[in-house]
């Protein structure tokens, strides 16, 4: 049975380590904060200028001066600090954030990521996504395995890239893939299926994936 969105978020949360500084994208990645394992403390960064993001406010306690990068009202924590946009992206670009978990339209087997633009349709902009994938130490993509039955894990992305060779791991509703970015475009084989959602046959993943990938020995 494929993973639910909560299952996917729970699996992504297993990538967190105590003391990590983490940036969560909008959509399914936001759910990850609900599944932080016990005994682990992470600080969530919001690229509009905040470290130590707290939960949504109680009704009536919303503060228009306190929002996250998705423009949602949030709260602060005892660990919170605020800073300006240049410092925020200095933090991101300078490699100080341990982990970024974000959504994607397409991921290629060489680690290329596309998640900001569909040519010919309205373009909303990349926001901070290009900075995050270029600067954060480790990039985990959390997305549905297919879109309208079309594969999203591709040999090469067909949409304009957000970043080239930037993705380290992809978690979909069907399984988990690790990408060895150091392989680059030089040869196939940089992508490896390392986990299957319980009861999902390997054949199904193969059929729904365009990207070439190895299978971790013993899997499936």
């Amino acid at each position, binding site marked *: 049975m494929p993973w639910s969105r909560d299952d996917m978020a729970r699996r992504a949360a297993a990538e967190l380590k105590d003391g990590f500084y983490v940036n969560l994208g909008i959509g399914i990645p936001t759910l990850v904060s609900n599944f932080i394992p016990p005994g682990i403390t992470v600080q969530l960064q919001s690229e509009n200028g905040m470290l130590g993001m707290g939960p949504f406010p109680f009704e009536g306690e919303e503060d228009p001066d306190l929002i996250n990068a998705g423009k949602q009202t949030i709260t602060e924590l005892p660990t919170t600090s605020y800073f300006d946009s240049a410092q925020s992206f200095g933090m991101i670009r300078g490699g100080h954030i341990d982990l970024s978990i974000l959504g994607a339209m397409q991921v290629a087997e060489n680690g290329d990521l596309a998640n900001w633009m569909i040519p010919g349709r309205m373009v909303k902009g990349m926001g901070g996504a290009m900075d995050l994938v270029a*600067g954060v130490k480790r990039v985990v993509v959390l997305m549905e395995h297919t879109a309208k039955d079309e594969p999203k894990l591709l040999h090469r992305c067909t949409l304009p890239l957000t970043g080239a060779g930037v993705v380290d791991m992809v978690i979909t509703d069907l399984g988990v893939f690790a990408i060895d970015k150091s392989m680059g475009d030089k040869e196939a084989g940089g992508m490896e299926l390392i986990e299957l959602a319980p009861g999902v046959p390997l054949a199904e993943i193969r059929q729904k994936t365009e990207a070439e990938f190895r299978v971790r020995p013993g899997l499936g």
Partner: protein
Amino acid sequence: MANKIYPDAAAALAGLLHDGMMIMAGGFGLCGIPEKLIAAIRESGVKDLTVVSNNAGIDGAGLGVLLDTRQIRKMISSYVGENKLFADLYLKGELELEFNPQGTLAERIRAGGAGIPAFFTKTGVGTLVAEGKELREFDGETYVMERGLVADLALVHAWKGDREGNLVYRKTARNFNPVMATAGKVTVAEIEGLVEPGEIEPDQIHTPGIFVQRIVHYPSYEKRIEQRTVRKRGA
């Protein structure tokens, strides 16, 4: 001390506006935007503006009010997804748009204010953003060169300010405001609270007064919320 306080936003902008100019406006979404100054820009009728701002407001709020009046010719932004009129004008070719990654935008503004004409960044390498720009390898990694940005006028919103122009921002309403304050040939700040010099602890000043030429004080602001997300009590 030279007087930096002006009676209202229109007075604070008097003599600073001309068609075709470049204006920076602070804020992220509708958070920390210079709303009184934007309204005064609208009233002034100045047009053909190039506006540097992370977002373009929403329909009828923030920079959206300058889209209504077609005063903006070009936006330099990282994300404009919340604005339907924007999409409409852009698709009809009535509005130019230059997308910058958010961090590149912030750094370009910071560089402009700090006398740095250009810098290199990893962000955008291998994407549309780097097309036509100089690429260069440092220590085995490829970077793209981006240019500093200086505007004719920077508009910022601060929480507190004193007569010298020292400013303090509040929570995530800080965002682009401090860097833009450094990158305007002239910077005008709207503030929520006016205090005397010395009332703000000098270690806690976010923007030193040197960056602010004019100040306008309004005690109340609209401060719209874009996404009102809450949780239940006792959950």
